[in-house]
């Protein structure tokens, strides 16, 4: 039987259709809030900061913001898509199809990837109104955009399976994802953190993601790009395998 065939493509298409059909909830808000972040933190306040890692603060800020929206967008997309499917019971529509569990999971992840790529492009376009620079390592940028997005898409699916109520999804965003992203260096370099906290930062996976993208876009990073790639790949493989396993076992999906 064909792997990643017509059924897989149909599910990818449905996932993309889903977030596009509510673009005013999925695409516009991050683009608008990124404008505010860039304008207030980068353009107004950032003008008072000389340089960070040898770069103007506004330039330093853009990759971190893009990564923040990639993480939040991919997590929000898959967690809400799967949780709503469980809640409306239309997950059963999918579970009786001949798609393999691998295909089901991958298709939903690609939906999250598509949303975060669209959002990232939107945020990048907004940043171009304030600052322009040449992308240092385009393939590295692509690597981090794709694998970080897939990683948090998988995290979103896992959360959607464990959550009993919709609030559980937002609790994870409020108390885990957003603090880790902020502490991972979206707005600051490791040099700006008190020495005592630097040791803790290296255990924050978002630190590697933000710095990986910053390296790809600007050529600077607080940590080796290979180390960042390894962390991201390991996380992706772990979470992806776990999601497929949950689907195979039917956890919260089958009676």
């Amino acid at each position: 039987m064909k792997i990643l065939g017509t059924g897989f493509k149909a599910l990818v298409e449905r996932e993309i259709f889903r977030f596009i059909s509510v673009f005013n909830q999925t695409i516009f808000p991050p683009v608008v809030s990124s404008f505010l972040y860039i304008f207030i933190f980068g353009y107004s306040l950032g003008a008072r900061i000389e340089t960070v890692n040898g770069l103007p603060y506004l330039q330093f800020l853009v990759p971190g913001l893009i990564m923040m929206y990639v993480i939040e967008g991919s997590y929000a997309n898959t967690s809400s898509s799967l949780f709503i499917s469980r809640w409306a019971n239309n997950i059963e529509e999918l579970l009786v199809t001949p798609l393999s569990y691998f295909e089901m999971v991958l298709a939903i992840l690609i939906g999250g990837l598509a949303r975060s790529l669209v959002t990232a492009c939107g945020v990048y376009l907004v940043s171009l109104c304030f600052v322009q620079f040449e992308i240092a390592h385009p393939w590295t940028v692509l690597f981090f955009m794709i694998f970080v997005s897939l990683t948090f898409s998988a995290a979103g699916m896992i959360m959607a399976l464990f959550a009993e109520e919709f609030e559980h999804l937002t609790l994870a965003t409020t108390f885990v994802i957003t603090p880790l992203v902020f502490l991972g260096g979206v707005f600051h370099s490791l040099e700006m953190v008190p020495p005592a906290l630097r040791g803790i930062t290296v255990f924050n996976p978002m630190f590697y993601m933000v710095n990986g993208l910053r390296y790809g876009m600007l050529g600077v990073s607080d940590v080796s790009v290979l180390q960042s790639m390894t962390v991201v790949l390991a996380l992706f493989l772990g979470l992806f395998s776990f999601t497929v396993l949950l689907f195979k076992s039917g956890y919260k999906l089958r009676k």
Partner: protein
Amino acid sequence: MTPAVEIQGLTKFYKSFQALDGVSFNVQPGDFFGFLGPNGAGKTTTIAAITGLANFQTGSVRVFGHDVRADYRQSRRLVGLVPQEFNFDPFLSAEQILFFEGGYFGLSRAEARSRADELLKTFDLWDKRKGNYKKLSGGMKRRLLIARALMHKPKVLILDEPTAGVDLELRHHLWDFLRRLNKDGTTIFLTTHYIEEAEKLCSRIGVIHQGRIVAMDATGDLIQRMTGDQVELYFKMPAAGLPDALKALPVFLEENGTRLRFEERHQIVSSVLRILHEEKMDVEKINVRRPTLEDAFLKLTGKKSGIAI
């Protein structure tokens, strides 16, 4: 011949509650099979096991020889499911629901579009195809569920109470449609709360009660085997009580002593009439009713007539 659905020793627990207890039966290709049972008997759980919506502890389920666990992609390709509850994607229109369903089952975009158009017309949903499905009436949603299950032309169509809450006219349309579908070769597996519906449509009947199969037979044979004619004798004068000679027989005196009712088995009628003649109890009218599937069902499940099943 490989059975369309083959279930052997199926056991399913929900925590400590045993929903299915060694269920075994076959449905042959081309059957119009009715699966009956009271609420909570295990009908929907059995369907969920066939379609991959429920895990089970022991036993095996095969669809045209394909194991639903080891070979789930092939077995699911052969089955169309019409669930009891509406479970559509809340973001889609009727047209999109069918289009994506076709895609999941491997139809190309052109094939899915053409098949969706065909089914939207067949089920009289064409004019409503563009709006969100939530705007459809209950009957339309029910038709959309059936259309969705037929998108990939399944060899086995499983319907879990498809006519629940459907008006009489639509119910008759659905019956005609299902009969035609079955005649064209689709195996049909139907659960229903309307026993009359099963009796009219199904060539074979299975009855499940408390997670166990209690009967499995051709519809006519099951009725004959389980029940005899229902006989009612009306007296000219009300009887004060049952004559002693009748007390040993399974007969019931009803309606203030004006009616004697019994089920005709083993030529009980001749004994009853002889005793009544000896007791000089004149019979004014005799009413004989042919047994129905409902009589057999009530007997098998120990339910009383009038109780919701």
